[in-house]
Structure formats: C-alpha cells, structure tokens
C-alpha cells in the first residue's frame, strides 16, 4: 500500500520521515491545531506552494530545465479565475470557465516554451523564460480594465468556499498545540483546558481542505511520475542528453512534456491561491521576487527529491512569516538606537533571511532532504560494517 502510494520512493531517513509526518499532520489538522487568522492563511499558503515548488522541482531538479516563468503560470491560474469571477460572477460556471481558459493559455505558452527548449542552449532558455515572464507581468499591469492593474482583483468565490458559508451551527473544538506547550511552562495546571479553542467551520475551511487534498494528490502524482519509466528517461536526459537521444528517446518530447505538466500544476496552484486568498495582484502572483522565493524553497529543501519541495516550502514560509516576530522579540532586548538594534530590527528580516539561505546552501549543498539522506546513508553504512553494497543499490527501497 505504502509502496504503491509513494511509488517505492521512501524518505530514506528517519529524521526526514519524522519531519514529513510533523508537516503532514500539521497540515491535515492545521485549522484545529493552530488558532488565528494568520496561522490559517499560512497553512493555506504552504499547501499551495507545495504544489508550486514540487512542480518546479520536476523541471529544475529532475530534468535540469531552468525556467523563470513558473510564476507566470501561477499567475495565469490566479488571474484566470479572478477575471472570470469578475466578469461572470461567483458561481461554479464562472470558476470552471476561468480554470479552463487558464489551462488552455498555459498549455499554449508552455508548449511554445518547451519546443523552444530544444532549439536553444539552457542559459538562453532561462533568459527567454525571464523575458516572457516580464512581458506577461507588464501586460497584466497595463490591461488594467481587465486585470485591475497594480490594484489587482478581488476574487469572488462560490458561496460554499467563502467565509459566509456556515455548514454547522455548533463550533468544533480545536487544540492549540503551541499554546499548550508554552502553557506547560507558565501555568501547567490549566494548560490543557486553556489550549482548547472553538473552531467555527466555514467555507474557508472547506476551501482549505480542497487545497490540502490537491497538494497531497499532486505530490503523490509527481512522486509516481518521477519513479516511472518516464521519470527514468528524465534522469537520463539530465545525465547525458546526447546519449538519451542515441538510445532512441526524442528528448524534445520529454522536455516539452515536463514543461507543460509543470506549468499546468503551477496554474492549478494559482487557482487555489486565488480561491484561498480571494485577492490577486501582480505582487502576490507574478512578481520576480516570488519567482526567486520558489527557487529558494526548491534549493533549500533539496532539488530532485520532491520531498524537498514539502520541507523547503514549510521551512521557508515559516521563516518568512515568523522571522520578523523573532527579530521584534530580539529587538526588545537591545539598546534603543544602537547598531545592534538596527541589525535586528524587524525590517531587517530579509537580510537575516538571506544570510540563513547562504549558510544553508553552503553547509547543505544538497538541501535539507539531501543532507538528511546523506547522514542516514552514512549511519546505515556504519552499522552494516563496511559492506560496499549498503549504500548505492539500485534506486529501490532502502528503508
């Protein structure tokens, strides 16, 4: 069962398994474990960006295609449904028109990009995607009567997926894990009681679970794909494209297929984003900064592992959201007006974040997942004595 679900591609590290379980449970039960609007929107973003980053990893990690157009496809999905809801209202019909239109545009553009990737060298391809993405961004900004320009568009979601929809009269019970743990220190007696909170189920929760289930399905789908005969060919292309061709693989077909699949998944993520966030603008969907963040999540997590997309996204978004709080806390201890205060001010979070990134890439070049697997493999090897067979068997199940 597990074998088929994960396509035989296990985490291959206890620590990684534990980390994935924590992330999985936190996402599955999130609305009932973390109170507050901010935590809730954070959970939604993690689900959405797992799809974005995992699909990016299919290109970058598994096929070594460097594209900067991933946010463009994300934006096409987000704007597609937002514009459809703007024009045709909040019904499901409008939603599906938006999704269909976005998917068509994505297929068209990614097909063109994919076919281009055979004609040109990798670096030039990357530059072209960058140019196309910028062109798209300025197009969206300029067509303001359609897209709202810089101001963006409010997304009108179907009633069942919005805050107004209340399927239950009674609130459900949540258990605030973070509150409970901090409570254990401050007031151990009432910690459990204090950690309970009310969850008023609304359409937002339904929407969250749509995103969560989508993320799980997309992840398992990609895991299957990279471990299929198709995925093996991708590896071959990554290793030696010339030889893959000599074996009879039309590498153009494979590259194009990867670019299209990856783009379609980014579009799907964009749709989910618009539905969750209910507001779409160039800044939150098409920005170049966002593209760089996607790249970072992929690299921090570990390229070419897919699990890295999950870990990288969770770590990155947590850091992005809570590093500022941490800095604010630290700034409280520093002398006002001092150099130190300037350095740890909440506005400096990007500086610290960049530093963290540089350090993590320096010390863990294969990303979190790569590093955890390396450690696990070393431990296994040590335990197996110096058996040379221990580490690099065939890519089959090692755990």
């Amino acid at each position: 069962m597990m074998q088929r679900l994960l396509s035989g591609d296990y985490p291959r590290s206890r620590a990684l398994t534990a980390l994935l379980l924590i992330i999985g449970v936190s996402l599955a039960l999130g609305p009932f474990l973390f109170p507050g609007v901010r935590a809730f929107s954070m959970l939604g973003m993690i689900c959405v960006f797992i799809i974005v980053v995992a699909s990016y990893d299919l290109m970058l990690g598994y096929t070594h295609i460097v594209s900067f157009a991933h946010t463009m496809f994300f934006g096409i999905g987000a704007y597609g449904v937002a514009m459809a809801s703007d024009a045709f209202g909040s019904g499901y019909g409008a939603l599906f028109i938006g999704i269909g239109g976005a998917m068509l545009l994505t297929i068209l553009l990614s097909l063109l990009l994919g076919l281009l990737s055979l004609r040109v060298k990798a670096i030039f391809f990357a530059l072209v995607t960058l140019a196309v993405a910028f062109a798209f961004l300025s197009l969206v900004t300029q067509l303001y009567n359609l897209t709202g320009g810089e101001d963006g568009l409010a997304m009108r979601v179907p009633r069942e997926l919005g805050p107004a929809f209340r399927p239950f009269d009674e609130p459900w019970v949540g258990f605030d894990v973070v509150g409970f743990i901090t409570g254990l220190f401050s007031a151990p007696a009432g910690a459990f009681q204090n950690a309970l909170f009310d969850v008023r189920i609304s359409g937002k929760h339904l929407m969250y679970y749509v995103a969560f289930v989508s993320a799980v399905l997309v992840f398992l789908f990609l895991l299957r794909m990279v471990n299929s005969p198709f995925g093996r060919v991708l590896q071959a292309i990554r290793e030696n494209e010339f030889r893959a061709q000599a074996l009879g693989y039309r590498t153009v077909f494979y590259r194009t297929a990867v670019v299209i699949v990856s783009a379609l998944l980014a579009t799907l993520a964009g749709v989910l984003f618009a539905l969750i966030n209910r507001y779409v603008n160039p800044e939150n969907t098409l920005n170049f900064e966002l593209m760089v963040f996607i790249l970072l999540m992929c690299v921090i997590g570990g390229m070419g592992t897919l699990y890295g997309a999950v870990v990288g996204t969770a770590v990155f978004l947590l850091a992005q959201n809570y590093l500022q709080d941490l800095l604010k806390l630290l700034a409280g201890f520093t002398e006002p007006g001092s150099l130190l205060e300037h350095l740890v001010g909440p506005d400096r979070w990007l500086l610290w974040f960049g530093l963290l990134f540089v350090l993590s890439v320096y010390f863990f070049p294969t990303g979190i997942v790569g590093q955890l697997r390396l450690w696990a493999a070393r431990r296994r090897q040590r335990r197996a004595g110096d058996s040379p067979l221990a580490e690099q068997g065939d890519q089959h199940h090692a755990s």
Partner: protein
Amino acid sequence: MASLHPETASRPVLETRDLTINFGGHVAVNRVSCAFHAGTLTSIVGPNGAGKTTWFNLISGQLAASAGSVRLFDEDITRLGAAARADKGLGRAFQLTNLFPNLTALENVRLAVASRHRIGHVFWQMASRRRDLTDRAAAYLEQVNLGRRAGDLVANLPHGDQRKLEVALMLALEPEVFMFDEPTAGMSVDEVPVILDLIADIKNKQNKVILLVEHKMDVVRSLSDRIVVLHNGELVADGEPAEVIASPIVQEAYLGASADEPAEEA
C-alpha cells in the same frame, strides 16, 4: 555471407550515397557511397582522422550531412534526428565512452531496454514494477560479463567495464544495424575476447548488418566479410578482406600511414 541471402543481397539494409560533411572548409567525409547487406560484417579501417567516426555520426544521426543521403530499408533517413534513427534500428556504441555516469550499470541498460520496448512515455506505472525489463537488462549485463557490477554507479566502473557497458546498451536496443566504434580500445587483453566473441555471436546468430571500426588488423582479418578503407574522408578501397589488405592503395594509404604507430598489423 551476403551472397547466401539472395533476397537481402539484392536490397541493402543500409546505404550511404555521396555522403559528405564539411566542417567549415574541412571535408571530413567526402562523397562516400556504400551499401550494406544483412548478415555481413564490414570492417572500416583507415588512419586516425580518416573520418570513420564522423561517417558513423552521419549514419546514426549525431551529425547532419552537408550533402548526400543515408537510406535505411530503402527509406531516406537523412533528415531524421538521432533518436528517430535509433528507433528505426540504428544501434551505436561510441568510441569515446558515453554513458549515464550517475546511474547504476543496470539502470543504464534498463534505459536501453525501455527504449526498445517503447515505454519511455509511461508515467503512471512504477519503473520497478516492470520486472521483465529489469530481468532483460540484467541478462544483457551478464552477456558482457558485468553481472556483478549491476548495482555500481557507472562513474565508479573501471574503463574496461564502461566499454563493455557501452556494448551492452547497444545489444539491449536490438538494432538492425550494429555500429561498433573501436569497441575494444583501452580494454585489457583478457577483456577483449568477451567483446569479440559477442560480435562473432551476433554475426553468426542474427541476420543483421554489423559495422566495425577497428585498428587491430588481426581482429579485422578474422571477423570481417568485407573491408572498407577510408582515407582523408574518402572511400579508397572496398572488397574481400584478403584482397583489400593486399591492394596497393591500402598498403600505401592505410598501412603506410599508420606505420609510425605500434605495428599491430605487421
């Protein structure tokens, strides 16, 4: 030999017509016309830089011809890419080892088997579920004496083993035309017979076209049905082994030109 298969003898499997490539003025292969019939092994000899590998590249599609054509089973394939040609049955083992270094030996062969079975596009099935393909790949590894190395990364294999793997990949493609480009170069003496026996085996058991670029004259003499001599990109001699080796043009063009090498053929 060719004449024993009357119907195939009349229709060549593979043919190059006036095949030419021009590298910015330097004509590396110059109007080479030659036809190959099923069931024959043709050796291609000639001094270093004669254009043997380049001719192979033109046939299997790694290079695009400047002029002339390549025909396979009476079909003009000159405009097809390498992948399409491999698909149609042109198998190639490269002179300079050309493998997937960070995959295991088994995975390398399995890629060839998967291509032969045309399942590269299958994305919904786990590769490891196709035991049949894995078993076939393992069998080809056995054929080249690499069974023990199945799980090793190719990058960690010694040079001789990589050469053998190169041959195993071509075997796994089950091509109509086998193109060996110095398959035994750089192998240790005790490894060479494995490959030569394999080539002899293909020749005896399958009715395929075999092209062999080889410098070792004793090998050429014992395996070939026919010898083609290239010199400065031109086909200068073509015929029965004994006849070609004895011909003055070969004595001068090939044996003369490679006299400064360690004299393998002396």
